[in-house]
C-alpha cells in the first residue's frame, strides 16, 4: 500500500477545521472496527476520522509504505511498472485507491475575477477568521458550499451563495437520521448495473447535509433564515461583473420534487417492510423559499465582495497514470472497478458498484468483489 504522505493524509491536510462526517458514527465503520463510543448518532470530526483510519491501519496490519509518492504507472508485458519517490516497483496488478477528489474544480471564468478579490477552494480554506474582512461569495450549494456559507455567515460576514442544481435532504426524517433511511430502505445498496442512468448517478452532487451535535437541517431555507443571500448559478464574468442565472426557481423545484420522491419511497418502504409503526408520522417540509428578488449580477470590483470560496466540486487526478484508460472528461474507464487494462483496478469512486461506494463503510462490498476479480485474474495466469 503506497501512501504519498501519512496514513489518512487527505483528512489531515485537505479538510477545513470544522468539518465533520455526514454519516453518523454507527455507520462510519470499517471491517472489524465498529463504533463503540458513547455517541453512535453523532458525527466524527476530522481528527476522529484520522484516528479511526490510523486505528484501522494498525488493526489490519496493512503493509503501508507512507511518504511514497507514485509518479508513474506504466503497463509492461507481464504487469505494471510503478515509479515512486521511494524507487520502482514491478507488479502484476495495481489497485488505484486515490479517490475522486484530488483537485478542486474551479470554472474557467475564475480567470476574469479581479485580483482585488481573494479566491479560496475547499483545499485552502480553513476557517472564517482567515478570510479577508468583507463580503464573501460562496459558489456551489452542495454539502461543502452550504456548510461553508453557514459558517462564514455566522462569523459576521455578508454571504452570497450561488446555487445551481443541488440535492436537498432533511437531516432527520420521522425521528431517524436521513442516512439511516438511505441505508435501511436499500437506496445505498442499489447496484451500478441496475441504475437507469449510471452517468447521472455518478455525477450526483453531495447532498445538502451537515453533521452537527444539534443534528440540524442545513437546506437553503435554513441559510435564508441565517441571512445568506441566494443567487442563481454563476454563468460568466463580463467586465468584472459576475453574471448569475435567472433559473434559480427551477433548481429549487427540481430539488424539492426529488426530495419528496425520496421521502415517498422511504414511507413506502416503511409500510412494505412492516416497520411503519416504529417511526414518527410521515412529514413533508416547506418548499424552498424563493427570494422576492434575486441579483442577476454582482460588481466584483466594487469592494462588496472581498473573497470567493469555490465549492464547485472536485475531480480525480490521473496525471501519474501512463496507461490510456482516462476518457476525454478525465474519468477512468472502468466497469465496476475493473479498469479497461488487464490487471488494473480501482476502488472508492462514486457509484463504483453501489450507491454507497464512496462511504467509509460502503467500500467493503465493492472491495470484496473487485479483489475477487483480481484474484481470479492472477489465478488464471498461474
Amino acid at each position: 500500500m503506497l501512501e504519498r504522505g501519512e496514513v489518512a493524509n487527505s483528512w489531515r491536510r485537505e479538510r477545513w477545521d470544522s468539518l465533520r462526517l455526514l454519516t453518523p458514527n454507527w455507520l462510519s465503520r470499517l471491517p472489524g472496527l465498529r463504533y463503540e463510543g458513547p455517541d453512535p448518532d453523532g458525527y466524527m470530526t476530522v481528527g476522529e476520522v484520522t484516528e479511526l483510519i490510523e486505528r484501522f491501519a494498525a488493526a489490519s496490519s496493512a503493509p503501508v509504505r507512507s511518504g511514497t509518492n507514485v509518479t508513474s504507472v506504466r503497463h509492461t508485458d507481464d504487469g505494471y511498472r510503478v515509479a515512486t519517490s521511494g524507487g520502482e516497483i514491478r507488479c502484476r496488478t495495481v489497485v488505484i485507491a486515490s479517490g475522486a477528489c484530488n483537485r478542486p474544480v474551479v470554472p474557467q471564468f475564475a480567470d476574469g475575477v479581479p485580483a482585488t478579490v481573494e479566491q479560496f477552494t475547499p483545499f485552502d480554506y480553513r476557517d472564517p477568521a482567515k478570510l479577508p474582512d468583507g463580503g464573501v461569495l460562496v459558489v456551489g450549494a452542495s454539502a461543502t458550499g452550504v456548510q461553508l456559507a453557514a459558517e462564514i455567515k455566522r462569523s459576521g460576514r455578508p454571504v452570497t451563495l450561488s446555487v445551481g442544481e443541488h440535492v436537498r435532504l432533511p437531516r432527520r426524517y420521522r425521528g431517524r437520521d436521513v442516512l439511516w433511511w438511505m441505508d435501511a430502505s436499500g437506496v445505498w445498496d442499489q447496484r451500478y448495473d441496475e441504475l437507469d442512468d449510471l452517468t447521472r448517478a455518478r455525477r450526483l452532487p453531495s447532498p445538502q447535509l451537515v453533521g452537527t451535535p444539534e443534528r440540524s437541517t442545513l437546506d437553503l431555507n435554513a441559510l435564508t433564515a441565517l441571512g445568506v443571500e441566494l443567487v442563481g448559478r454563476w454563468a460568466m464574468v463580463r467586465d468584472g461583473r459576475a453574471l448569475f442565472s435567472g433559473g434559480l426557481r427551477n433548481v429549487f423545484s427540481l430539488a424539492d420534487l426529488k426530495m419528496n420522491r425520496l421521502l415517498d419511497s422511504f414511507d413506502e418502504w416503511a409500510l412494505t417492510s412492516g416497520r411503519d409503526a416504529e417511526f414518527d408520522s410521515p412529514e413533508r417540509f416547506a418548499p424552498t423559499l424563493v427570494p422576492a428578488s434575486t441579483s442577476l449580477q454582482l460588481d466584483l470590483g466594487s469592494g462588496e465582495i472581498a473573497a470567493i470560496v469555490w465549492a464547485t466540486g472536485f475531480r480525480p487526478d490521473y496525471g501519474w497514470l501512463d496507461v490510456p484508460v482516462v476518457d476525454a472528461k478525465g474519468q477512468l474507464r472502468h466497469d465496476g472497478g475493473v479498469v479497461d487494462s488487464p490487471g488494473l483496478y480501482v476502488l472508492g469512486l462514486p457509484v463504483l458498484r453501489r450507491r454507497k461506494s464512496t462511504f467509509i463503510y460502503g467500500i467493503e462490498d465493492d472491495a470484496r468483489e473487485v479483489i475477487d476479480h483480481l484474484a481470479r485474474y492472477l489465478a488464471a495466469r498461474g
Partner: protein
Amino acid sequence: MTTVADNGVNVQALLDARDALKSAPEAAQFTWRASSKWQGGVHTNITVQDFFGLGQEQSHLEEATFEADHPEVFAATDKGITPIEYLLVGLASCLSAGVASVAQNRGIQLRSVEAIVEGHHDIRGILGADSDVRNGFNDVKVTFNIDADASKEDIEALVAQSQKRSAVFDALSNPTNITVEVA
C-alpha cells in the same frame, strides 16, 4: 390494463441521437439562422429556412416568414408582433416541446398542454427615460395548464425537467455572448 403513452414524440430517435453524439461531439454543433430585411418604419421581415447541423447544411421543409413590427400604442404600423414577443413565442414552444418529450419518455399520456407566457417589461429602459431600468424583461412568468394521466407532482416534475433541458429557457435565463458586426 396498460396502454402505451403516445404524445407523438419519437423519443427513441432522441435517445439514439444522444448516444451517437456522445462519441461524435462535432456532429452535435448546430448553427441556426434567421435573415431579416427592413421594410420601413419599425417593420422588419424575417425568413428562416436553412441551418447547419450533423456536419452539413440542412433545410426546413419550407421557408418560414415572420413579420415583426410594433403596436399602434408605439405609434407604429403593427404589421407583426413586437420583437420581444418572439422571445415569448420561443419560450412557450420550447417548454411545451420539452413537456411532450419528457412525458413520452416517462410514459405519461398528455391530453392537453397549454401555457400562458408573460414577460414583464418596463419600457422606460428602451426609451432611455430612466438609465436604471434595463431594456429587456424584468421577469418572465410561464403558467402551464396540463391535462394528463399523471399526479400533480408528476406533472410538476415534467415541467421542471422541461426547463432543465430547454434551449430557450437557458438562452433567456443565462448570459450569452453576442457579436454584432457590420459586413
